[in-house]
């Protein structure tokens, strides 16, 4: 097992090196210093700034330097846009708000869509199944933006105006558990609604496939009740695709939440990165993309390990 984990880790090293390489290259195509200083800056200003930021050295040396920084977790590069703050400060401040949305959204989405998937598979071919699947396709065809815009309108404006009940704030964020539901619950509910269409369809397909397997027939023949077959036999065997899907969703949730964070003004990682891109805050963009990619790869490795735990055959291949 340990050997397998080590192999997965080693395998991802060149991938990570590649990501950093491409990202750093892409960020330099459009000269970040001119972009930040503006076209009116003088040549001397430019050179002084480049020397200070270490951008005057050859690309490969910058690459090596940045890799060394990453390896030693040294994110002390100063933000251009907010002088005095290092990329590390910004990163640490952004993690909690991001997780405040991502984790509840992931748990809620998985639970609800697995339940609906099970229900649809149980009633497969009948009207309950049809209605659920039609609803899922319709839901998938609506843009995320519409969910966000209308969700915010109905959740934060409409309820207040017509019922005098304001459970949600329009936008913003405050740390602390007590204010979580006012600020974060609405984005979480919206992202659950967005993810629902795809996930229920996927889980239903998985469950329907499992329904036709021999071991289900065997379990039935031995006299197991419908509930036991559904929840004990089938759910356990469907675990692999379920885990894969949840793990695949994890990085996408980070991506998907960027929109929620931007729209609801939640100072999470996605919003911070996007504002840094717009403000041409080069060191922050670089550190944040590197962190996003690292998170992504770590979840990938974690998926592989979970696979290996649930299905020992994987380890050997």
């Amino acid at each position, binding site marked *: 097992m340990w050997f397998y984990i080590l192999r997965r880790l080693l395998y991802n090293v060149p991938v990570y090196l*590649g990501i950093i390489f491409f990202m750093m290259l*892409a*960020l330099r195509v459009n000269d970040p210093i001119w972009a930040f200083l503006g076209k009116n800056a003088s040549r001397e200003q430019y050179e002084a700034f480049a020397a200070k930021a270490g951008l005057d050295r050859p690309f490969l040396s910058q690459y090596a330097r940045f890799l060394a920084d990453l390896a030693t977790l040294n994110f002390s590069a100063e933000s251009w846009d907010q002088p005095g703050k290092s990329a590390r400060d910004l990163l640490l401040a952004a993690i909690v708000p991001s997780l405040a949305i991502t984790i509840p959204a992931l748990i809620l989405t998985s639970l609800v869509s697995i339940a609906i998937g099970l229900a649809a598979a149980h009633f497969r071919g009948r009207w309950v199944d049809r209605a659920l699947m039609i609803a899922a396709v319709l839901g998938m065809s609506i*843009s995320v*933006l519409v969910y966000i*815009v209308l969700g915010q309108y109905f959740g934060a404006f409409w309820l207040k105006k017509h019922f005098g009940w304001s459970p949600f704030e329009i936008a913003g964020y405050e740390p602390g558990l007590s204010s979580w539901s006012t600020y974060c619950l609405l984005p979480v509910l919206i992202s659950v609604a967005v993810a629902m269409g795809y996930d229920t369809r996927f889980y239903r397909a998985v469950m329907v496939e499992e329904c036709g397997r021999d071991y289900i027939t065997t379990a039935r023949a031995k006299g197991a009740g419908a509930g036991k077959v559904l929840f004990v036999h089938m759910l356990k065997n469907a675990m692999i695709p379920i885990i894969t899907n949840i793990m695949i969703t994890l990085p996408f949730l980070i991506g*998907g939440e960027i929109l929620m964070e931007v729209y609801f003004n939640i100072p999470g990682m996605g919003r911070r990165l996007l504002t840094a891109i717009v403000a041409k805050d080069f060191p922050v*963009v670089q550190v944040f993309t590197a962190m996003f990619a690292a998170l992504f790869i770590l979840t*990938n490795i974690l998926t592989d390990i979970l696979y290996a735990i649930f299905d020992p055959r994987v380890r050997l291949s």
Partner: protein
Amino acid sequence: MIRRIYHSLGVQKFIRNRLALAALAVILLYFAAAGVVLLGGITLEEATQRAGPDNVPGFLETAAPEKRLQFCRFYLEPVERALKKKDPAAALREIAFAERRAAEKPAAELARIVESAFEIVDELSESENLYDQPALLPRLAALEAKVDSLYAPLEGSEVFWRRLRLSLGTDRQGRSIAIRAVYSIKVAVQVGLVTALVSVFVGSLLGGAAAYFGGWMDHLVIWLYSTFSSIPSLVLLAVLVYMFTGSPFEGTLIPVYFALCMTSWIGPCRITRGEVLKLKELEYVQAAASIGFGRLYILLRHILPNTVHLMLINFSLLFISAIKAEVILSFLGLGVKNEPSWGVMINYSTQEVINEFFWQIGAATAFMFVLVLAFNVLSDALQDAFDPRTVLVSAKER
């Protein structure tokens, strides 16, 4: 050849699926609309010009009395201003809200009408709430008649076009929502077609070559796609689009094409690679090799044609994800800027939604919904017909 394809099991199964054929018809309709826009059926100027007052409601909703008063004022003011100029006749000729132009009447007569109209406006403006005073409504109607007489009557097909233009209302800048929504079809279809075609082509070729040639080629392609897929797509899209800021392409579709193509070739590449790994062990490939065909020839002539069904499915899925991604990019201000698109419209509508004006977001959503739904139905049908074993190879995106 065509007959053989037509009578194949998959195609027959697809044709029996009525829903899929309907979806295909809808998609062709959208493509035709995009073609008409592209050929100049709706010009960019038409999509960005002022067609009427701000936030005129669409065909189902009658405007509130306050709104109607506001609209009358909107139509009165340019005429009043023109009459005060040195050369009123020339100034009047310049007034144009799409088809609606100032009437060709002597300036003195127009001035009289404007004056009497403003009297009614002043009278109506005094009352706080026009809703509560039904007695004032006939006055409002009289005002509207006066305003109408300031403008030249519409003739023949103009009436129809005018009605069509205002059928879905206007946005915050008085631009026709219907025209903008239809124009956006072009942008969506362009983005979808370019992204899906390029990505499927590049992805299938790379995936096929990786699987068939193996060795370092395989390692290279796997490394390339794991690298690209390890960056969250929205982040990658943002960075790639950002590469173009300051270049002459900024705000056009070129950065969008580029970013979407760079991120979406991965799906078809992975799937084709898996399929070719299976195909290359089959006897017909070994037979072709034993006759002495070159490896590249076998790949292009014998192996890749057998993955056409996967290309079709991927094309359909990528089309959806490209349209959705374009909308999100436009929403974040990273997409097209000088043309209308559904994302731009939804972005604009956020201010209107707060004021309870839903026509713009509704129109953009409805137009996009029908197209994406049609493609979703088509993808399902294609998968059912050509690749029934795979559970769901849906490209996962938001």
